[in-house]
């Protein structure tokens, strides 16, 4: 058993009920194949960085789970035929949020993402200084 992150983008034409149904279907599929869903979120509708199938928006769904290769294979198989899913990503879950939070706590850094300014402008200034 490994931990996975599974995210996908749904067609923006779907209404909230259809989105919920889709999520429930995938949760069920994972469970049927011996997986365990530890988190399920609907991130909601957001703008895409580029057009996919002539669409500029998508509904993001995010699932954290534990399972075996079998579950992942099954998801890939199902996703291939699900025409409402525009994109999907299944990757090993490295618990980024938790581990980064712990790391910050250990170091006593409590700012999540301080503004580090414009790194490229800094670089140009360095080059002018003869570096």
């Amino acid at each position, binding site marked *: 058993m490994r931990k996975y992150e599974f*995210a996908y*983008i749904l067609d923006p034409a779907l209404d909230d009920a259809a989105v919920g149904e889709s999520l429930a279907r995938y949760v069920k599929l994972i469970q049927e194949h011996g997986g365990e869903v530890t988190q399920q979120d609907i991130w909601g509708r957001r703008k*895409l*960085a*580029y057009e*996919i199938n002539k669409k500029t928006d*998508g509904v*993001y769904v995010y699932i954290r789970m534990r399972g075996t290769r079998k579950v992942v294979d099954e998801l890939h198989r199902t996703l291939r035929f699900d025409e409402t899913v525009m*994109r999907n*990503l299944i*990757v090993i879950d*490295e*618990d*980024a*949020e938790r*581990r*980064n939070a712990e*790391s*910050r706590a*250990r*170091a006593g*850094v409590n*700012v*999540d*993402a*301080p503004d*580090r300014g414009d*790194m*490229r402008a*800094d*670089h140009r200034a*360095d080059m002018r*200084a*003869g*570096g």
Partner: protein
Amino acid sequence: MATVRKKKEKKPARKKPDKFYLDRIVVIDWKDERRLRRFITDRGKIAARRITGTNARHQRQLAIAIKRARHMAMLPFIKEHYR
């Protein structure tokens, strides 16, 4: 008559701190769009280490995270109609 120009002095480059180390980031997250955005150029390319000061290990992780974020349309592959 040749003017003697003072040779431009080359100071050794100031080592830039690794931004992920400063923020104590141990896992570079593909979901952390706000952070990743600071490591791409305005054309959408992954910024060079030389520019951002990212260390080698973090740069490798960063590249993977940016590619995942691109796949999920959270970051652009290229910015068209630039300027």
